[in-house]
């Protein structure tokens, strides 16, 4: 089970980062959301996985670690605030700049971009 869990975290991270690397704001926001899922799951994993062990006293024999849960709970709420802020910023950027590119302007020469990305990749 642990391997599957770790694999899921890895996949979410990959998908999140790939989308964050895209050039349009909405896609980046989706990427950030995926990434925050990954981060929350990762943080949660520091308390290890446990079945039927909710940290409510008297309800189970062995309890799961409540501390990462408390941390992740606030992280989820703060993550929402962050996503909301970024998405509204993206809207404002589109309203003020007239486009939804992350740099506030659509790159003028695709060929220049191409060479830049080639240089970077090479």
């Amino acid at each position: 089970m642990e391997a599957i869990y770790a694999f899921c975290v890895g996949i979410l991270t990959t998908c999140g980062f790939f989308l964050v690397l895209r050039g349009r704001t909405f896609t980046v926001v989706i990427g950030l959301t995926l990434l925050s899922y990954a981060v929350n799951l990762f943080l949660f994993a520091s308390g290890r996985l446990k079945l039927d062990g909710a940290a409510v006293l008297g309800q189970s024999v062995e309890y799961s670690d409540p501390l990462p849960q408390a941390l992740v709970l606030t992280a989820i709420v703060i993550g929402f605030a962050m996503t909301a802020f970024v998405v509204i910023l993206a809207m404002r950027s589109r309203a003020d700049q007239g486009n939804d590119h992350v740099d506030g302007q659509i790159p003028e020469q695709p060929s220049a971009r191409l060479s830049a990305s080639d240089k970077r990749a090479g």
Partner: protein
Amino acid sequence: MNLLWVVLLPLIGTLVPFFTERFGRNLCALSVAILPACSLILVLLYAGDIFSGQSLRQTIEWIPAIGLDLSFRLDGLSLLFLLLILGIGLLVILYARYYLSSKDSMGQFYAYLILFMSAMVGIVISNNLIQLWMFWELTSISSFLLISFWSNKSDARKGARMALTVTGAGGLALLAGLLMIANIVDSYDLDTVLASGDVIRAHAHYPIALVLVLLGAFTKSAQFPFHFWLPHAMSAPTPVSAYLHSATMVKAGIFLMARFYPALAGTDLWFVLVSITGLITLLLGAYIALFKHDLKGLLAYSTISHLGLITLLLGLNSDLATVAAVFHVINHAIFKASLFMAAGIIDHESGSRDMRKLNGLMKYMPYTATLAIVAALSMAGVPLLNGFLSKEMFFAETLDLSMFGSLSWMIPLLATVGAAFSVAYSLRFIHDVFFNGEPIDLPKTPKEPPRYMKVPVEVLVALCLLVGIFPAYIVGDLLSVASSAVLNGDLPSYSLAVWHGLNIPLFMSILAMVGGITIYHNRRHLFQFQSHFDEQDAKHVFEGVIQWIVKATERVVETFENGSLQRYIFLLLMFTLVMGAYPLFSLTENIGTREQIPVDGVTITGAVLMILSAIATVIWHRRRFLALTFLSVVGLMVSLAFAQFSAPDLALTQLSVEIVTIILLLLALFFLPQNTSKESTNRRLSSDLLVSSLIGCVIGTICFAILTMPLHSISDFFLANSKTGGGGTNVVNVILVDFRGFDTLGEITVLGIAALGIYKLIAKMRIFMPTRDDKGRAWSNDPHPMMFEMVSQSLLPLALLVSAYIFLRGHNLPGGGFIAGLITAVAIIQQYIAHGVQWIKPRVKVDYQWLIAGGILIATLTGIGSWVFEKPFMSTWFDYFDLPWVGEFELASAMIFDLGVYLTVVGAVMLILANLGKLTTSERISIKEND
């Protein structure tokens, strides 16, 4: 005793000129002189103790744990430099009163000058390495201000910048060196450092520390190859040159070498580095000085040469040579300061410093000329003047050298050559300026300066004579205490006398005199020879180097910061990848010993669903609505995962946040393009995919390693004390509202701030509102279906009831303020969706901003409330009560805190979503902008 005042008095004096400038020049100069004079008197009061062999200390503790103290020492060396700094400083104050014209801001000049003086005083009496370095840097900065005093002149600005760059860079090297020394001896205390010379010299890092400290000293004291800044600093007003570039600032490097002599000197490395640098500087300075037509240029190179001489003496690792070095520090300061002042008088009264124009001034200013001639003869090393004495000692020392083996005979020879050039340029100074025919078209007719402008020169020239004739009587004691401070107490026997009999040093002196006269007599041939070489202007070279650095830096910045967010993130990810992956190479066992949970069908189905929908989100990311749909599936699966792995609170939170997030993103998508066109090249896509996959692998590996390792958690404490200490059985909730309540308070504050920021962003948004989708269909024919309206309206009380239940049980069962707040928010949002903003507006009259503020206020007040009961901030109280029909129930202060959390969450979520929703209607918010 209070050594602090020695430096504090001048430092306070920095402010004096600003207040007294308006009372006229005389009063201003007088008031400025008072505090340094007090400081000098204070030093003189201590002088008796120093001469009787004591040395004084004073330490004021600041942060003793890391060795930062205000610590002062007054020993012979400090005393000598204090007398030079404060004594010559007072003369310069008097001199500058007459030198500055009425156009110059006298207050500003004096303020800079006194600041510099304080910094110098600070250097010489510091007993803490960091403190010493701080004053050292202060001299660099204040000298920058002084050199660039005439800031409308390009030369002054360039010269000042060069001086600051060179000495500032040297200062950084010095800091590194001092830190290394402090590390070696494990103390910033100068006494400790000076006492552990053997430890330092034996340490493996000694060579590096030595080189770094010497870099600081050489740059400050204009030693080759860093000498080039000093001639360009001559664009400063002459009082500055007289003060900084003869007696004080350039001597700071010498002081540094002398101060650290017990700790660093005595090795071959010290000998080679210091003596050879000194020798080259001595010869180079003396040679170039002869060819300078500018009076101050000649004096500047002469200063370089004499500083080289002192450095050479310090480098010889001989006690007698060190005494000679200290002696020459005194002598050079005296005659060079008076020469600079004389040069300033000549410049002031004739309007030129060019020796090709200045001729025959003896006729016009006989008195000043006499003074200058005496000082120049002292510079040349003529007997009965102070320069002669230290030069004799220097010659004697060069004769005793054996360090260069069979080549040692060259040192006395080179010393004589240097001295001959010194005689030659001194002769040029005397002959060219005061004799040699008539002046050639000078701007004004030269005349004697005001009476009191000559006083400082008179004082200094008198000292030249007195020291030259009665050396032991005038400076004997000072020299012996200063030298013994440098040598840590072992004073060699030497004699300060004018006449030592017929010996080789005297012969060398005579040889130098004759040689100097010969060189000067044949100067035309030499000048012609020199004119074959292109003179490399250090300014251009320096500016070129600076330009090159600026361009190179720009290129680097452009590479990393080209304005493309994608590139930044890519570079950041690469960095993360390297930093994250590197330690994994040393992790050989990534499967821990913890027993793993067996796989079951339901979980694997959920995992597959999550993975597939995450991948689908990426594949269809250009079709945004589709991507959003898949994203919501991922979120749902995440909340199920939390439920599966014993985190019911998380599952509830994730579920409600998921709903709110997706509604928010849907609303946002309404205003944004529905699809993204393909922009990235395949090459970019593959490289992005590669790097994100690699990061995914790294994160997954780390996650797996963590999951399989045994758990050592601090949570046992929380589990044990949750019920007894916090009064609740739901440990997660108790951690949130009790154990880590302060964190939660911070987090709801962040949430509130984010919501307010969003409110502000929405307020002035002028965004295009689409009426049709990208296929040309109208968005909606029936925005508020009746069925939906009815159902959601009837659901509202139920939802609120659930929310209240979740809130109340939160302390003991999964639930709490966060979750209840989200459920309430979702219930209200549903009404917005079903009925529209216009319908809600008259019915819900809650100001969400006040809800946030109220929530945070309640939470904070609950925390503060514990102070009333004299408990620490955020202590909780709880008790159990019994009511008929209801049964036993619990009341806890944590519940009030949780209420604050609840209100903030409701307020924040609603503030964001309701205002975003209003954008789709004519009810858009608009803030009346005052600004």
